[in-house]
């Protein structure tokens, strides 16, 4: 007999919390850069194919798996996989569903703290003397402790990191309804309002410099949306679109299963799950695609915009955007809104990524809520020092490849095989449809059985092929940097080994509760 687990308070709270899980920094920073670099409007064709054939079926699987696990008192994938597949190895394969989200938070909380810091700097005018993109990059690097032009060391960044970690731990400590749901109920509407106000401001901007009429917002939108159909023949574009869909919808991590484990047995997963995915897509394509690129295009023009976009997402968000806001009336407020919405997008995701480990400690090891949160937060805090101190050496990139690229594709393939093929397609489909407010079209059963696994398998092979050898051999990495990268690998191995030990400790409980 399992004891009463926590539950979501309201359905809208659940939708906002799940949407908060999916909506992250990538919606506002990564998507517009990816679209611009991969065929503009034409990018949306492979993007929507990946949404329909990859993200939506996987999302339904993860919701259904989570609800099934929660019914039997399992909130993390070791227990859930053991229920679906009666094989001793299943619970160990499920470790990936705790390891990957936890591994991401090891660096994600630090990135999140940059947003909090820059929202504060916007209000207090800390970067207001910096009016060029190149100088603003220096400002960001100085904040990260890479030079001393603006900050004497890492002290400021570390304070904001501590604040961010404290906020994450506090929200987790307050629980599902009192912490995560409340955060989503307040945070997500604020995010929508801030993003919508900024989009309105962008769309009414016109051409900021009358002497350069071509540098205007409409041409900026064209920079993203004008389709280049010749790019559709390029496999790289299809991979980039599938990758973006993967990252933005947060499938393949194990975090969705944990949130879904707090559903009631007969709660709908089809419509509720689709609502969260569509909310994420609305925020990404309609709001995220209308902010950074169009406004930066209007201020800097096509050539510089290409440079900025090719420099990556953080270049756009943390170097170009603060400069743009300083050129606008009430720029400090708009800068505050921009970085605050990024922070909200970040924190609603990071609490979701930490929750699987908290749920495992409580459900399988029978730890108290306070102990589970304290140990999870404590390990994350200690581990985060590797990406913080080894940022310049690429420790963050190293962790990101293993957990954020290779790991998610591997886990998504595993969970699809276990849920759809080992648990049997008819059982998986019944789980998805049970309690459905509107039934999922039967066509998706075919997609789940054949298209989704092949799609994920192709992604896993392509990503490993493209990036794996260079990462494994540490090409172009100096000896000093290699030490940090090995440190990052050692950290990941240690976390995984600790999780194996905990799962081994809990094996009787996991197996008896099947």
């Amino acid at each position, binding site marked *: 007999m399992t004891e009463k687990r926590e539950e979501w308070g309201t359905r809208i709270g659940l939708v906002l919390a799940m949407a908060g899980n999916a909506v992250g920094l990538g919606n506002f920073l990564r998507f517009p850069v990816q679209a611009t670099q991969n065929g503009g*409007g034409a990018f949306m064709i492979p993007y929507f194919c990946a949404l329909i054939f990859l993200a939506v079926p996987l999302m339904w699987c993860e919701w259904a798996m989570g609800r099934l696990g929660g019914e039997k008192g399992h909130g993390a994938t070791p227990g859930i996989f053991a229920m679906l597949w009666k094989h001793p190895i299943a619970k160990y394969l499920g470790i990936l569903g705790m390891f990957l989200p936890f591994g991401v938070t090891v660096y994600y909380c630090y990135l999140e703290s940059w947003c909090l810091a820059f929202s504060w700097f916007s209000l207090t005018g800390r970067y207001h003397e910096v009016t060029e993109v190149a100088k603003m990059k220096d400002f960001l690097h100085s904040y990260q402790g890479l030079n001393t032009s603006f900050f004497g060391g890492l002290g400021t960044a570390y304070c904001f990191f501590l604040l961010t970690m404290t906020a994450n731990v506090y929200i987790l400590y307050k629980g599902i309804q009192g912490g995560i749901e409340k955060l989503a109920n307040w945070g997500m509407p604020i995010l929508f309002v801030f993003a919508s106000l900024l989009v309105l401001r962008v769309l009414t901007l016109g051409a900021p410099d009358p002497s350069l009429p071509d540098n205007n917002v409409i041409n900026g939108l064209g920079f993203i949306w004008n*389709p280049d159909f010749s790019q559709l023949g390029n496999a790289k574009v299809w991979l980039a679109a599938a990758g973006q869909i993967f990252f933005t919808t947060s499938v393949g991590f194990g975090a969705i299963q944990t949130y879904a484990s707090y559903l009631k047995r007969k709660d709908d997963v089809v*419509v509720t799950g689709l609502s969260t995915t569509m*909310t994420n897509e609305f925020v990404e394509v309609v709001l995220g695609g209308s902010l950074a690129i169009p406004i930066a295009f209007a201020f800097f023009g096509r050539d510089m915009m290409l440079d900025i976009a090719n420099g990556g997402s953080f270049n756009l968000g943390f170097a170009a955007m603060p400069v743009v806001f300083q050129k606008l009336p009430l720029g400090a407020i708009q800068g505050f809104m921009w970085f605050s919405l990024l922070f909200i997008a970040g924190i609603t995701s990071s609490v979701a990524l930490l929750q699987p480990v908290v749920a495992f400690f409580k459900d399988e090891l029978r730890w108290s809520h306070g102990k589970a949160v304290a140990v999870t937060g404590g390990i994350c805090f200690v581990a985060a020092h590797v990406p913080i101190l080894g940022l310049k050496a690429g420790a963050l990139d190293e962790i990101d490849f293993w957990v954020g690229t290779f790991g998610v594709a591997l886990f998504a393939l595993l969970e699809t095989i276990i849920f759809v093929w080992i648990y049997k397609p008819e*059982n998986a489909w*019944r789980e998805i449809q*049970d309690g459905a407010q509107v*039934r999922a079209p039967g066509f998706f059963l075919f997609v789940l059985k054949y298209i989704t696994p092949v799609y994920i398998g192709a992604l896993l092979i392509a990503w490993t092929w493209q990036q794996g050898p260079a990462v494994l051999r540490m090409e172009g990495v100096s000896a000093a940097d290699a030490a940090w990268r090995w440190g990052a690998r050692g950290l990941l191995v240690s976390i995984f080994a600790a999780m194996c030990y905990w799962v081994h400790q809990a094996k009787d409980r996991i197996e008896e509760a099947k």
Partner: protein
Amino acid sequence: MTALGWSFLTLIWTLLSALTGWCFYLVLSPSAKPHETALPPSGRM
């Protein structure tokens, strides 16, 4: 922006707004109570 660019933007914004709106309408609808579907007995454990 080209005519094709406008067409893509209009089509996708409309589609996403409509789908998101429909989903929220269902989620917030007073009749949206969880219910059992007429499914055959589950193979769940």
